[in-house]
């Protein structure tokens, strides 16, 4: 698990400053990685299964509504990273924001992936976004 998240998050380079490497690898990467997966899945479930199936909302199933959730998901992923790094008291460094941006991109990717996989189960939005 740690190795997986490490390989994903070190695609943008090694953690900075180097002294904080163990904290990033052992704590922050797994935390934000798991949170990111969970939150993305939850957002997909809320959009397709809660709003567009269980609640039966009929006016929130267009591509732009899906895009709202996509952007919201990216924003949450960014904030989760900033929150996690400050919670673990790592040294302030611009790397934190590069990592947060990368996490937002990953979050949007997961959201897209889960959308493709799960949209069929929705009644009102089974063809959103395409």
């Amino acid at each position: 698990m740690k190795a997986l998240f490490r390989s994903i998050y070190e695609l943008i380079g090694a953690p900075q400053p180097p002294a904080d490497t163990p904290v990033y690898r052992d704590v922050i990467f797994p935390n934000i990685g798991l949170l990111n997966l969970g939150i993305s899945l939850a957002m997909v479930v809320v959009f397709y299964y809660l709003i567009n199936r269980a609640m039966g909302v009929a006016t929130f199933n267009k591509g732009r509504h899906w895009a709202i959730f996509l952007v919201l998901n990216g924003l949450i992923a960014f904030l989760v990273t900033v929150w996690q790094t400050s919670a673990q008291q790592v040294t302030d460094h611009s790397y934190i924001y590069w990592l947060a941006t990368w996490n937002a991109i990953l979050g949007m990717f997961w959201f897209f992936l889960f959308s493709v996989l799960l949209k069929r189960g929705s009644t009102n939005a089974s063809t959103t976004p395409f």
Partner: protein
Amino acid sequence: MRHFSAFPRLLPALGLILLLLPGCYSRSDMKSEEGATATSKSTTETPATAPPEEAPVAGPAEDASDVVSGTAAQPLQAVNVFLEVSGSMEGFMPKTGASGENTKFQQHIAQLLSEINRTSSARQKTFYRIKEKPYKDTYQGISATVRSGIQQPAKSTDIPSVLDTLMSQYYQPGTVSVLISDFIYSPKNAGAIPYIKTDITDALTRSGSHPDRAVSVYGYTSDFRGTYYPALVAAGKKTNCCDTEIPYYIWVVGPADAVRRFDAALLEQQPSKQAHFGVTYPRPGYSLLSKYQNKGSWYYGDAGASKRNADAYRVVAVSDASVQQPVEFVVGMNLGQLPSQYREVGYLKQNLTLQGVDTDAKLLDVTAATDQTKASSGPESKFTHFAKIRLTKPPKAARPLVLKLQDQRPAWVAQWTTKNDATPASKTFALSSLLDGLEPQVEGDKRPVFELPLTLQPGE
């Protein structure tokens, strides 16, 4: 739609909870997690590549110097104090003058005897006056001798025979002998002078070999009012001596562990000259500091290095190093338990060495703790000394790196030694030859004061 009722509405929330429950790490979790093994899926991923702590280093560092600390809490069995009362000591302990002034020796030794008598760090305290052989005395008796002068001075005492007596009759585990004397050793004739070292070694080993025998020598000077007997008898005694201060010494003889504990309890508080022979010390606490004067790309390579409450890190993982971007790291050391001689920054700068395999790591500097480091909120506040190390070549594989403090004869010994003590001075006849006799029998067998193993490894 309605027939799905409430359950499907809860599904997303349930899924989210299931997903997040085992997930979150925090640094404080790491410890319990490692102990509890595989209770959640995330525990199975402990970094398999991290080397076991210190494993490749080991070597000679793991021997007795680590073990001796175990008994430190127990008081010593016994302390035997021997005060030399030969004629040459009379000047240190003159009868109290009209104006009530005393010598530094009287002030110091009277206080030391009182402290020994009161101390809780030894169970049994016995006091002896040394003439031709030790005569048992009481604390009151010996204290009175120091304060108001020697009643019946012995003609002369012979240092080798005194040491022989100490070693054969008073050398016990957990027991130290404390010998207070001017250590002016006059051989029977000038031809014996070159053999002083051998005489001392023989005296210490005559009653059998004691591999753990240790001697601490503390040197002091005091004003002197009386007759001065130089070692070279031919020079003749000097009455109404002296304008200069005359040295006297406290030798602590016993098993290494007992000597160390006695020194720490009773002799370390006051400033003094000191030299130690065969005394072993527990390995001081030490740790790498990743956020104190660190430079370049390196981090703690220890397993579980992200633990916030880990107290020591020993593995340097170097991700990148070059001449342009060298790696610099600081090792914090806690030398509070060592004698003051080994804590002096000057001594450390000269004698602390770095031994590495296959690396260009160099010791840059040794510094003592400052007010700034002591007040810091970081881990550097726990350490008394810091050693800064620089390297420019990344290691190819895990390699040992050892900080070693050499045991070097302090410079004062040479300064206090004289070949001719006919003129009274703050020097002692053939002192360095006397101390040569205390060195371990096998040359080159001198142990370092401590060895602190570290590991250098490439970053992953």
